[in-house]
């Protein structure tokens, strides 16, 4: 069995699956239940000055009848006294010394506030700290959370203040509500962060009730934007992790967060540079027990690939992620339909005909049987047909014979500018 132990900037855990700072990690009771279920670590729900919450806090989108495709909350950081949380952290750590407990922190952007809270939580034995610069609602209006996290200078300064006194590793949790997350990630590194975690939730309004015209959710008839998470945000989160992982000046470990629901999602994040992952929505949807399959699935995957340790996959796909300008313009794939597997729903035909490149024909063979065929010479390899196809193996995207040597846009532009200079020389 593969070794699933992870070490994120010195924070050790028995497996890469942590619970993110959120409702599931609100209390010692919950975190202990999670550790019993098998979670490797937990980032305690953000500590700070206790706040007041509203009632009616969560909402989710269903997609084609499937619940919780995306999830949103307007809950704030912990609403329990700091002393109570600290006591429970101490007791939990004592009971589970090998599991990672990270304290998520959020205080006003003042040096003394950061010093004070860092010292207090480290006194009860946490394994690390996570600075919450991401929460997009409520706290941001008080100058904290994403209000800090959207300003690189504030991220750097507050990271620095925390690091001034911290004895345990400091993770900076970043908000996605920013044009370029590498800017704040770099600022965190400059401030001395030992690791970064991403993404926090995305600003969202979940819906409007068609009968009452109220927002979803609403609090006594009024709504406010919340933070979006769950399976729907995974591609956004994965891109942000990947952008940071390949950035030359961001050289700290990454804790991946955002729509991770199973072991496959976790493998993708780790291949794209995450050292471990944090999960929330999936646990809120199904309970802590899901970690059993996450651990087992990951373990079986590594065994089937002959990989001894989960840390061996970290970042392995990062070199394959680049800018569009570095993609080969002369690479061609085409769709091929397997008549034996195809069930003739014709979805590929209508998708291609109406919205892509009109290259899938509906034909009838000599026995009067319908079949579909791709005119490969007109196929641009867009993948749409294989995306809408409901049957596994009915459409393959295959490499077409290469007619031209590889050339990227950047290479082409460089070559063209060379030609232009050459022409200019001739004209002279």
């Amino acid at each position, binding site marked *: 069995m593969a070794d699933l132990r992870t070490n994120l900037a010195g924070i050790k855990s028995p497996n890469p699956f942590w619970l993110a700072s959120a409702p599931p990690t609100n209390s010692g009771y919950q975190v202990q239940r999670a550790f019993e279920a098998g979670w490797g670590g937990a980032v305690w729900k953000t500590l700070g000055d206790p706040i007041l919450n509203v009632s009616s806090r969560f909402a989710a989108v269903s997609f084609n*009848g499937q619940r919780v495709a995306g999830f949103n909350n307007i809950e704030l950081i912990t609403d329990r006294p700091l002393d109570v949380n600290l006591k429970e952290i101490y007791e939990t750590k004592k009971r589970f010394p090998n599991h990672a407990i990270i304290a998520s922190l959020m205080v006003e952007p003042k040096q003394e506030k950061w010093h004070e809270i860092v010292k207090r939580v480290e006194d009860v034995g946490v394994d690390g700290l996570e600075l919450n610069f991401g929460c997009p609602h409520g706290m941001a209006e008080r100058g904290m959370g994403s209000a800090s996290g959207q300003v690189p200078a504030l991220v750097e300064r507050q990271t620095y203040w925390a690091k001034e006194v911290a004895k345990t590793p400091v993770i900076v949790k970043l908000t996605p509500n920013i044009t370029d997350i590498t800017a704040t990630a770099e600022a965190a590194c400059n401030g001395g962060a030992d690791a970064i975690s991403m993404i926090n939730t995305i600003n969202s309004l979940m819906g409007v009730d068609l009968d009452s015209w109220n927002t979803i959710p609403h609090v006594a008839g009024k709504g406010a934007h919340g933070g979006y998470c769950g399976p729907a945000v995974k591609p956004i989160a994965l891109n942000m992790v990947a952008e940071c992982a390949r950035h030359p000046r961001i050289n700290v470990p990454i804790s991946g967060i955002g729509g991770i629901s199973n072991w496959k999602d976790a493998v993708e994040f780790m291949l794209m540079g995450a050292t471990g992952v944090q999960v929330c929505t999936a646990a809120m949807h199904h309970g802590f027990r899901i970690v059993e399959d996450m651990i087992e699935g990951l373990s079986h995957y590594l065994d089937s690939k002959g990989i001894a340790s989960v840390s061996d996959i970290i970042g392995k796909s990062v070199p394959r992620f680049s800018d569009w300008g570095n993609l080969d313009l002369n690479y061609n794939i085409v769709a091929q339909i397997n008549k034996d597997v195809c069930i003739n*729903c014709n979805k590929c035909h209508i998708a291609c005909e109406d919205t892509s490149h009109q290259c899938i024909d509906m034909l009838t063979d000599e026995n009067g049987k319908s079949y579909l065929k791709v005119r490969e010479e007109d196929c641009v390899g867009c993948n749409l047909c294989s995306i809408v196809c409901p049957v596994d193996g009915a459409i393959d995207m295959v490499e077409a014979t290469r007619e031209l040597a590889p050339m990227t846009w950047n290479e082409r532009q460089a070559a063209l500018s060379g030609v232009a200079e050459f022409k200019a020389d001739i004209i002279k």
Partner: protein
Amino acid sequence: MANDKMQRISLSNLEKNFLEVESGLTNREAVEESNRCLYCYDAPCIKACPTGIDIPTFIKKIASGNLLGSAKTIMSSNPVGASCSRVCPTEELCEGACVLNHSTKPIMIGNLQRYATDWAMVNNQTLFQPGQANGRTVAVIGGGPAGLSAARELARLGYDVTIFEGSEKAGGLNTYGIVSFRLPQRISFWEVEQVEKLNVDIRTNTFVGKDISVEEITENFDYIILAVGMAHVPNLGVEGENLEGVYDAIEFVKATKSGQLSEDFVGKRVVVIGAGNTAIDGATCSVRLGAENVKILYRRTEEEMTAYDFEYEFAKQDGVEFRWLTAPKRIIGDETGRVTGIECIKMELGEPEKDGRRRPTAIEGSEHVLPVDAVVKAIGQTRHLKLIEEFGIDHNGGVVKVDSETLQTSNPKVFACGDVVFGKGNGDAMVVTAAQQGKDVAYAIHKQFSFVGMSN
């Protein structure tokens, strides 16, 4: 099985036995199932539906929560689409054609159709409006699926339509002929009501040829549609047929759908003669009326029976016994004229007949008597010969001949559709086929009228 039956069948509350067997989909089931539909392009289910309902579209509308639109999509193609959602042999039609038969499992099209039409029913929706009056009158003789369907389409096209219906209520087979536990009357009544809302005048309790003459109709209407369906069950041609306790299966089922249920069958022994869908209905109704033992006698075998597989299965689950290769020879009565038994003879199958089914012949000396209290005859249906003759139109043993293009009978003013044109060897006489024929006749009339209109 017997125990199971005992638990399901109440002897004290017969009404309960006739409640609809299948419960409809829950909202959640409908959401999940409708979202499973692939929304095929040029979908085979549409082609497999005799009325050509745009199935992927109505299912998509369920998924999106547009139930009114879904019901309209269904009912616009099939004026008796609510009944059909319950009685169509879907596995032989739309569901049988579903592409998911080749990958997972077919969509429950019938159940989704029921879900959408039930919604329209419960919410008292009016789905269609009458067309602008074009001054033409049409008499529709027979208010069953074919007649209603023709009337509905003509009314939408602006015709002034009158339906002449012999029974107390319109709906024909759907109202009286399909057992309540498959198709409650309220479904058929709702469909009739949808047609009435288009200003179609439905004159019930009006037998053409009796309550109103054929001449009067011929004189007073521009077009006539003959949609009278079929008549009663023919005689067996054996002794004792007139004894008390011998029933016509059509009338027998009709009685279970009209008013008070008879308590005369509780604890009794019933035999049903025949093995078509009507025979199954006669048998399962007998079970639900509390009969202690119900047997179906059929002179051929399981192989040749014409009942749908699911009907056969249903009867077996009801505890109905099947006596294959058994024909009635004589019905025996007591001195008061009541049935006490039936003498049967064993049969064997010989050479195939014209229709491909092997001819049954009696085995000499195999006579035996089954003690019974009631005999239900279900060996087919006769034709409304007298009425057809009064119209003076060509027919073949009661099967009215129509031009395949114009759907006119030999009298160009008279059109025909439904079971009255359904001949032997033409597949199943399904409600859904009748509905389509009704539409076709409506369009044929409209085509002729439009053509005449243009030439004027």
